[in-house]
């Protein structure tokens, strides 16, 4: 019996130990109803934001775009940060990109972002990271706390999908920040952004604000929202 057959046998025996109850449709219906309710609330809120942006007469490209795209991804876009966005960087696959803090760097690979964090996380010489599969367009985030100061944390935004990301922004606890966008040459189908922001923990260990509610967005060069999300968990 070779290794493959041994692994097959072991997996089969392990799976057979599990007594699976009959399927119930109720949890699926509950989830679907909750998600539909959430989308209706988000679309209602975005209409209010769009109306206020028009009334305030703001000239910024992004808020005008939000007014036009009141329904859809822009409905969850964060506030527009003050000041210009940092210049986007293009890196070669595997190139170490310093993140502005000692021992912290990032590497971009084919379908993986690798972040090397501070020694306190005991990650060793390698890195934690984020990878994905499939072609779904999405934007998401990883949060890296920064002991022992607890004063700041690294927010790593990841977008994968069509289009060229020119800017990324995050809204944390009511404050908006531009992220530095990094991508591979050409059109790799994804981009990442990083920004140092407030730690969500206070020095005594209590939670300053929940990660739920953080807003993320990726924009193209014209200010159009490519994807946006409000974290739910």
């Amino acid at each position, binding site marked *: 019996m070779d290794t*493959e057959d041994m692994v097959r046998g072991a997996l089969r025996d392990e799976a057979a130990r599990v007594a699976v109850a009959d399927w119930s449709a109720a949890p699926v219906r509950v989830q679907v109803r909750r998600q539909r309710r959430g989308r209706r609330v988000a679309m209602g809120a975005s209409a209010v934001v769009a109306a206020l942006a028009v009334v305030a007469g703001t000239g910024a490209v992004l808020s005008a775009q939000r007014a036009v795209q009141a329904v859809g991804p822009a409905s969850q876009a964060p506030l527009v940060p003050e000041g210009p966005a940092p210049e986007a960087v293009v890196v070669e696959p595997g190139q170490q990109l310093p993140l502005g803090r000692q021992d912290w760097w990032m590497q971009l690979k084919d*379908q993986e972002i690798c972040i090397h964090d501070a020694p306190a996380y005991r990650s060793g010489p390698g890195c934690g990271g984020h990878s994905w599969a499939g072609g779904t367009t999405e934007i998401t985030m990883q949060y890296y706390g920064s002991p022992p100061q607890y004063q700041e944390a690294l927010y790593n935004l990841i977008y994968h999908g069509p289009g060229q990301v020119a800017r990324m922004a995050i809204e944390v606890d009511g404050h908006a920040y531009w992220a530095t966008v990094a991508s591979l040459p050409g059109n790799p189908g994804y981009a990442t952004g990083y920004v140092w922001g407030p730690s969500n923990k206070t020095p005594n260990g209590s939670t300053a604000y929940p990660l739920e509610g953080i807003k993320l967005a990726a924009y193209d060069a014209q200010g159009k929202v490519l994807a946006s999300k409000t974290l739910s968990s």
Partner: protein
Amino acid sequence: MTASVLHIPVEDPPPSTTAPASAGGPGLREMDFEGFAATRWRRLVRTAYLLTGDYHEAEDVVQATFAKVFRNWSRISRLEEPDAYIHRALVNNNLSRHRRRRVRQLLMPVLPDRAHAAGGGHRDVEERSVLLQALAELPQRQRAVVVLRYWEDMSEYQVAEVLGCSLGNVKSQASRGLAKLRGHPALASYAANTDSTIDGTNGDNR
């Protein structure tokens, strides 16, 4: 190397006049989906169990996957291989959960006190099987390759389609996964039942 991406139709094909689901309204659509889900449920929960190592989490992951499938049922039911879509959604769902869990772990301002972790963690370790412990030591994607190849019996091509990666990637992940499991105590009883040793593969291994 650019990873392959499974093409998923982005627009629903024109409605067919002979499709009973489109003619029957929401009731028939739900029954159609429920029949589909009920027949896949047990096997998918077992797959998710091998991916997560926890039965309740496995149920949650599969139910969340079914919720996504149900929302897009009119399109998915017309795919040539809806099961491939479901496996892809299941694996991605699990990978996302794992990433979120890691983010929460990184929130802790100090690393957990060893005595406290030993108290809770030790009980968890005792209850887990040796095989699940071995699987937990594999990186998530490698674990997914091992489970899909050797429990779901998917071909390398099918696994590549599910994971949205290249065939070469699947082969190397499978090879590394097997290498790590090969010497693990979890497989000791399987090796002991045969005359072969677990120090390599034979010429027929594929």
